[in-house]
């Protein structure tokens, strides 16, 4: 089933990103406090996680970035610690690396992003940004603390309706009885994990310990590696965590759902397996302002039928404002166009898909996954970003990591 939300392709984005590079303001980097090279010149880049989406993630950063280092846990047989690495920490120590593309399994994304920004690098991170909710707060704080550029490698919001966004940004809308239903497109069955598997020897070229990283050191079997890692809670969160950022990025921008988080979560799914991601039906999430967001997988159980989709258009939402408030809205400036990564790293303006908004988008699908795994409704506090009144469910909001990995 085709998603309703995703209507800007990576290719379209790259085209416009290149245009962004061409029109970027030329300001010497020393004025910006980042050394002596003017921004019209080349940036030193590194790619961490070279399989799957890796090359695409690196290219998403735009032109003018020279690949200085590639790092992957599969490079044990070829690492020279000059251009080829297995340990990303060595890459981040390099002063000549300005920007980092991160395309490892997502269990690593937050750790690497925070460390990269602490080391002064800008970051293009493959989606999802995180594996669980608290990680995202650490990434957003690091972005702010170190003044770095962070962009998630999905770009739906760049095609979003800015007039619709303006209504939600204006603060004029106290209540919103919109019901938005996103159906399908989350590859639930495709990105499930194996519950029966053959334990195999670790391949000679693979640093399995490093691959597992903050996750438990499991027995090796190939399905945990190389794309199908998506099916395991240790590394990601199934098709939902893998695909939902694509589908939610634009509506989260348009409906202002990247400024807050749901307060009630109602799941419908069979009891989840403790390690392998599996099937789920739907999840209904309510926000404090009355907005309801529904994710319906279309892959398990009966279709969601508790509410009908309603009041989703710009016109519908404008009608929720009084005449007086509509006039106030007209007088307000439109939201600024979103800044693309290629422009952001040169101008030091915050990127459109920055860590703060991405944290709110990721919270939507992480919360759904927590509810599926706990098999019960949850209440969430968007301010503290913790689950309310359910300590055990809250453990999935801030999960322990295997030392020495910690945020």
């Amino acid at each position, binding site marked *: 089933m085709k998603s309703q939300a995703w209507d800007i392709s990576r290719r379209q984005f790259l085209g416009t990103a290149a245009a962004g590079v061409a029109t970027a303001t030329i300001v010497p980097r020393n004025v910006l*406090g*980042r*050394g002596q090279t003017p921004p019209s010149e080349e940036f030193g880049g590194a790619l961490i996680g070279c399989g799957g989406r890796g090359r695409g993630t690196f290219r998403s950063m735009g032109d003018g970035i020279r690949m200085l280092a590639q790092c992957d846990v599969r490079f044990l047989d070829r690492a020279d610690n000059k251009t080829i690495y297995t340990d990303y*920490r*060595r890459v*981040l*120590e390099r002063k000549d690396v300005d920007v980092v593309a991160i395309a490892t399994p997502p269990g690593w994304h937050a750790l690497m992003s*925070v*460390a990269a920004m*602490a*080391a*002064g690098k800008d970051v293009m991170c493959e989606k999802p940004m995180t594996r669980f909710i608290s990680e995202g707060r650490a990434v957003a704080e690091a972005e702010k*603390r*170190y*003044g*770095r550029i962070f962009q998630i490698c999905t770009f739906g919001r760049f095609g979003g309706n800015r007039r619709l966004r303006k209504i939600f940004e204006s603060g004029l809308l106290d209540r919103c009885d919109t019901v938005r239903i996103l159906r399908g497109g989350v590859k*639930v*069955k495709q990105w*499930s*994990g*194996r*519950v*029966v*598997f*053959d*334990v195999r020897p670790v391949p000679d070229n693979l640093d399995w310990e490093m691959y597992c990283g903050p996750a*438990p*050191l*499991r*027995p090796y*079997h190939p*399905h945990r590696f190389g794309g199908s890692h998506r*099916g395991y809670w240790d590394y990601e969160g199934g098709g939902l965590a893998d695909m939902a950022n694509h589908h939610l990025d634009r509506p989260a921008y348009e409906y202002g759902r990247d400024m807050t988080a749901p307060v009630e979560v109602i799941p419908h*799914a*069979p*009891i989840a*397996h*403790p390690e*392998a991601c*599996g*099937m789920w039906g739907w999840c209904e999430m309510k926000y404090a302002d009355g907005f309801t967001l529904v994710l319906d997988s279309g892959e*398990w*159980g009966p279709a969601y039928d508790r509410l009908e989709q309603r009041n989703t258009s710009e016109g519908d939402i404008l009608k929720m404002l009084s005449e007086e408030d509509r006039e106030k809205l007209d007088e307000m400036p439109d939201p600024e166009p979103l800044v693309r990564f290629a422009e952001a790293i040169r101008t030091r303006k915050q990127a459109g898909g920055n860590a703060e908004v991405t944290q709110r988008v990721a919270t939507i699908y992480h919360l759904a996954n927590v509810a599926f795994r*706990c*098999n*019960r409704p949850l209440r969430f506090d968007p301010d503290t970003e913790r689950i309310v009144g*359910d300590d*055990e*469910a809250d*453990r999935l909001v801030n*999960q*322990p*990591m*295997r*030392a*020495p990995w*910690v945020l």
Partner: protein
Amino acid sequence: MAVSEELQALVAQLPDADGRGMYTENIDKDAIEATIAAMFEGGVPFVRGLVEMLDEPGTAENLKPHYALHCLANHTLVIQDEPARANLAGVLCEKLADPELAVHNKEYLCQTLQWVGRRESCAALGRCLHDEDLVEAAAMALVAIRQGAADTLRTTLPELQGKCRMHAVYALAVLADPQAVSHLRDALQDEDREVRIAGGLGLAQLAAPDTAEALLAAAEQATGWERIQLSHDCFLLAENLAAAGESAAAVTIYQHLWETRDDEPHLREAAEKALAASR
């Protein structure tokens, strides 16, 4: 002890893996929940029986008892039956001491306690900190449980060496145990780089003003990855101090970073920005 036929019959009712070795076909929520509810009625003997049915990871023989134990643990939370949850956790703790149970299955019990354990599980998990094969899972469970975990870790720490000690120091750091300040300060001087980094993190989390000097000095002496991490911890400490009302101590840290990080302009800028914000 032999597993009852009734339990075996219930376990057999849980889904088989599909052709891909997954739980993606013929997954009947109502049937699974009815089976788990029936198992729940069996109480402690059924929990014990499920642990005894666990097998090698990944095998078809392991699948159903493995899944059942998780479902049953979660069921006690869904129905909010605290005595049942405590009884289940108690069996898992008891089984952690069973010399006949395989290490991989004990790891799974730690993982289940990470999900469902509370204060009463800390002592049993603490004993696992001595075991290099179990320390990782036990430390993660203790961090998740939080309540009572720091006491266990602090008490056990002097008895631990090497890998086991490293995991315990990290857990104490993450838990930000106020009584662990001296342990974390010592950790900052450890021979093991990973332990030093854990010490820095813990001190940053604890936000004790009198630790700033030690952390700044350690960060300044460090190189490479350790320098990145300990410098990051200096910022975290300053932020936590400011949040705790210790603004002067926070400013001292930012000032120091601003004055000493000429070769790390991003840190100098970050310190400058923080100083401006604190004025």
